[in-house]
């Protein structure tokens, strides 16, 4: 596939065990080298196009993740890295875990794994690039604007989450 941009990525640990985080870092180092796609790991949300979020998000991190997401310019893509970021993983039942990145901000690509493997992560980033291109294309036509985290929270209110469904199943 053709890659049209050199996107920059931002990584934040939303209460993970660190395993996924070191794999995110490892994927930027010589063996895996996501930098060959022109990708740069940045620390500034306003420079970033792709947000790599690991961990199941704890209550103290919630607002930090929201702020980072809201500060990123459009178009932007969010990657949930690792099984905890996808649905809470092994920590799902912990009292301080909300259960996945998509409980707080919209997620575009889910990359499972405990810990996520760099190869899977790179694959996810490439998928994210495609989504990023599509979003940029739509934006040019004035058809797209990403949700803010507040709008997303509003949207979630009316939706059933996976754990709601589980509870319903248990009751039935």
């Amino acid at each position, binding site marked *: 596939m053709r890659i049209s941009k050199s996107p920059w990525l931002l990584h934040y640990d939303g209460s993970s065990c660190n395993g996924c985080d070191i794999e995110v870092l490892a994927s930027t*180092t010589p063996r895996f080298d996501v930098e060959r796609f022109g990708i740069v790991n*940045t620390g500034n949300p306003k420079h970033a196009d792709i947000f790599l979020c690991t961990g*199941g998000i704890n209550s103290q991190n919630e607002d930090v993740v929201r702020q980072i997401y809201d500060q990123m310019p459009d178009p932007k893509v969010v990657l949930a890295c690792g099984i905890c970021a996808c649905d809470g993983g*092994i920590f799902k039942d912990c009292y301080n875990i909300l259960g996945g990145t998509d409980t707080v901000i919209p997620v575009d690509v889910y990359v499972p794994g405990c*810990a996520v493997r760099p190869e899977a992560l790179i694959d996810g980033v490439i998928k994210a690039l495609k989504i990023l291109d599509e979003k940029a294309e739509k934006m040019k036509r004035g058809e797209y604007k990403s949700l803010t985290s507040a709008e997303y929270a509003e949207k979630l209110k009316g939706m059933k989450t996976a754990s709601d469904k589980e509870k319903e199943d248990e009751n039935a």
Partner: protein
Amino acid sequence: MAAKRSVIPFGPQHPVLPEPIHIDLVTEDEKVVEAIPSIGFVHRGLEQLVTKKDFGEMVYVAERICGICSFGHGYGYVKTIEHIMGIEPTDRARYIRTMLFELSRMHSHILWLGLMADAFGFESLFMETWKIREKILDMLEAATGGRVIFSIMRIGGLRKDVPDDVMKGFLPELDKVVEGIKACEAAFLSDPAVLGRLKGVGYISKEDAIALGCEGPFLRASGVEHDNRMRGYAAYGDMDFKIITSDEGDSYGRCYVRIHEIYESASIVRQCIEKMPQEGIYVPIKGFPNGEHMTVIEQPRGGACYYVHASGKKFIERMRVRTPTFANIPALAKTLQGCDVADVPILVVTIDPCISCTER
């Protein structure tokens, strides 16, 4: 003109570490006069999972306290339960555990070297060390199937055996790793630009290090000869190795200790493979644990305490882990006092903080 006090918040999202930590730096111009750490951004509350997962499943939870020291956490928990239940693992299990533990220590220390290089702005050195680290991860993957989280531990032994020829194959790889680190050592320990960033930065005296309860390389770099591996758990009692210390007490000393510990660990791995006993890897267990025990082991970052309180049921009452970074934070706050603001990232990295360990 008197300097004005101001507070600079550091973190939680910042480029030095992959993990979130927050420190309020009270500064007078460029000098830090006080540092107040606050934690909790990775607090998951996994110690309470004991009420939802049985004592066997908790091994996997313990391994996920932290992705870097994962093997050690699994080991610490398993050892505590085995002690309570009176289980003696087989010799082969003990040796394989020791080998994996030391490989984990090597990958953790090399990871730290990379983060340190990144913190003092030596990007190519960061890349070089992490390239070397991949060799260790390849060995761990060949032995267990996982790169950072292995899930090979089990109460009573191991879940799978590591074939002898696979382990024999590690020996030439280990030589390459040691050779690679020796080449990097010149940059870390004798490059004048690097020395300028490390020498005398973040000094802590031997007395302070003991009084503040420092652990691991942080403690040993202040000249204290203390290494919990000397307690002789697993197969450490059969191994020949020495405790690396330094009298410098600063960031340079910590760098020196960790680099030389990599060589010691490589030697322990070699000894394990050469002396590897031939017999089973698993002792069947009966019943549930009943009693309490605390195990102290040496993680890459220092001593870690595992406490288990069980009352003869499938679910244990309490699991508590005191990790080395938790013990090192008060000393970190102390070393930050009086440093330059520009040195804060180096000092934070120098204790090798593992936040997910700390907060569990």
